[in-house]
């Protein structure tokens, strides 16, 4: 023996090694392993999560007991036949899991799917299954993953989706009903206007014909009385137009576009003022900024405010109308100032109400709808209206529009 010591040493090493795996110690490890395995099984059962593994080389499948439970089978079930495993899935889910598993094994693609599975007992459940690929030395050696029972969560989610859809369809139905009601109201307003105006036209027309054809037999008082008939017919006609207009504005959703307010104010001034008024009035139009709003509606705002200013300065020797604006980050305040007769500040609450007129003087004609229309339009645009008057020295009517159209 040339190296007896060495042999002894080897022997000793072996002995030493055997010493390490002493049966008691081994028992401890085994016990600890079993304990851990049990713990894992328990937590899987509680969480309804099972673990599985597919060994690519041997084609062997390993399931934890929770996987058996999820499939509704006993531990005697043999999971090695993949066809049988896939057969648990519903007809719509089976091809999905088959394809995903195939891609995992062949291409190394992980997957995470929510599918429907029919347990051996016949109960359909929802599961989430995840597959992860292990690559060793550039070969796919193993696919492992979890499978969990998510039926409760999935049913709740499906119920939520169903309820949402139901809610949406209910909102849709209500919207349709509301739109129909709006259309009917609009048609009603339209018909009212049409049907009420025809007899008015007859009243006005035939009293005019009477006044004309029977002028020789009517005395002045007769003619005056006929005049009252036709002027009231005309007035009723304006009231009807205003009611229809304000009803319609209240039902309209503004179509928002950029409006060059300065050009619009100028155009509306020329539309509402007569040639004599234009030459007799000093019209100061400042550099007012653009706004975002409904063009047709905003024209009514300027039309009404400017014609009011023209109307209420009519008695003055020097007539001045000023249009200006102040801008802050969030809003623009547009003002129309005139040096007309003004109003008593204690009546300010009544100014913007429909058919409230502060001036009974027949010189200042109008139905009292103009400012109500202005308020309606501005409020539809998310803005505010107001006025102030320093008695006999003039009046300011203003409206504030938000600069950000999103806030409408």
């Amino acid at each position, binding site marked *: 023996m040339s190296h007896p010591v060495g042999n002894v040493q080897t022997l000793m090493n072996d002995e030493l090694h055997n010493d390490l795996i002493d049966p008691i110690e081994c028992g401890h490890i085994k016990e600890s392993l079993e304990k851990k395995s049990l713990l894992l099984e328990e937590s899987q059962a509680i969480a309804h999560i099972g673990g599985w593994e597919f060994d690519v080389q041997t084609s062997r499948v390993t399931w934890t007991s929770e996987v058996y439970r999820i499939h509704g089978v006993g531990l005697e079930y043999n999971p090695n036949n993949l066809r049988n495993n896939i057969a648990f899935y519903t007809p719509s889910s089976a091809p999905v899991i088959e394809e995903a598993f195939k891609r995992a094994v062949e291409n190394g693609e992980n997957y995470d799917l929510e599918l429907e599975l029919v347990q051996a007992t016949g109960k359909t459940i929802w599961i989430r299954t995840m597959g992860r690929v292990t690559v060793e030395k550039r070969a796919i050696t193993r696919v492992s993953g979890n499978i969990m029972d998510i039926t409760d969560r999935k049913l709740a989610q499906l119920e939520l989706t169903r309820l949402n859809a139901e809610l949406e369809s209910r909102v849709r139905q209500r919207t349709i009903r509301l739109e129909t009601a709006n259309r009917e109201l609009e048609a009603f307003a*339209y018909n009212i*206007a*049409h049907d009420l*105006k025809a007899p008015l*036209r*007859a009243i006005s*027309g035939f009293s005019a*014909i009477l006044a004309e054809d029977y002028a020789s037999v009517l005395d002045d008082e007769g003619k005056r009385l006929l005049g009252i008939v036709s002027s009231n017919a*005309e007035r009723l006609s304006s009231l009807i*137009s205003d009611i229809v207009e304000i009803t319609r504005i209240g039902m309209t959703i503004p179509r928002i576009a950029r409006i060059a307010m300065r050009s619009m104010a100028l155009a509306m001034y020329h539309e509402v003022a007569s040639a004599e008024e234009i030459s007799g009035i000093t019209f100061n139009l400042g550099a007012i900024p653009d706004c975002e709003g409904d063009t047709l509606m905003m024209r009514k705002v300027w039309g009404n405010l400017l014609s009011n200013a023209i109307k209420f300065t009519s008695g003055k020797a020097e007539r001045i109308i000023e249009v200006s604006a102040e801008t802050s980050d969030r809003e623009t305040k547009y003002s129309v100032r005139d040096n007309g007769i003004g109003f008593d500040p204690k009546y300010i609450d009544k100014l913007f109400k429909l058919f409230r007129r502060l001036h009974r003087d027949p010189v200042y004609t109008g139905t009292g709808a103009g400012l109500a229309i202005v308020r309606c339009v501005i409020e539809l645009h998310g803005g505010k209206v107001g006025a102030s008057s320093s008695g006999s020295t003039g009046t300011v009517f203003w409206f504030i529009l938000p600069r950000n159209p999103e806030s409408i």
Partner: protein
Amino acid sequence: MDEHKLVDILLVEDNPNDAELAMRALKKNNLVNNLVLVGDGETALDFMFCRGKYQNRDHLDKPRLILLDLKLPKVDGLEVLKTLKTHPDTKITPIVVLTTSREESDVLRSYDLGANSYIVKPVDFDKFTQSVRELGLYWLLLNERP
């Protein structure tokens, strides 16, 4: 009214009072020699296409102007407008929509369908007479026929 004479105006109006007022306004301005009044859209179309009770009418005798109310029994005004403005025999006849409706959609729709003019009937008779006078002057006297 003598229907063998050339027709100047076809007035399509269902309200007899409105019709009387319109005719008076036209006569007063010496604008009309021969006016035909029909009370609904279907009769208006029968007249224009020489059908029904107008089947013996001369096809070549087209009115110089049609005054058309929009709210009509049977076939409504917009439908009459559409039919006349899409038919080769009638599309060149000027049509003035004369109606109570100031409805924006009616105005746009009327022009879209080819109306030559759109006039809102005023309640005030003097204004009404003036409107009729102006439209008559323009369409019957000033405007050159094609």
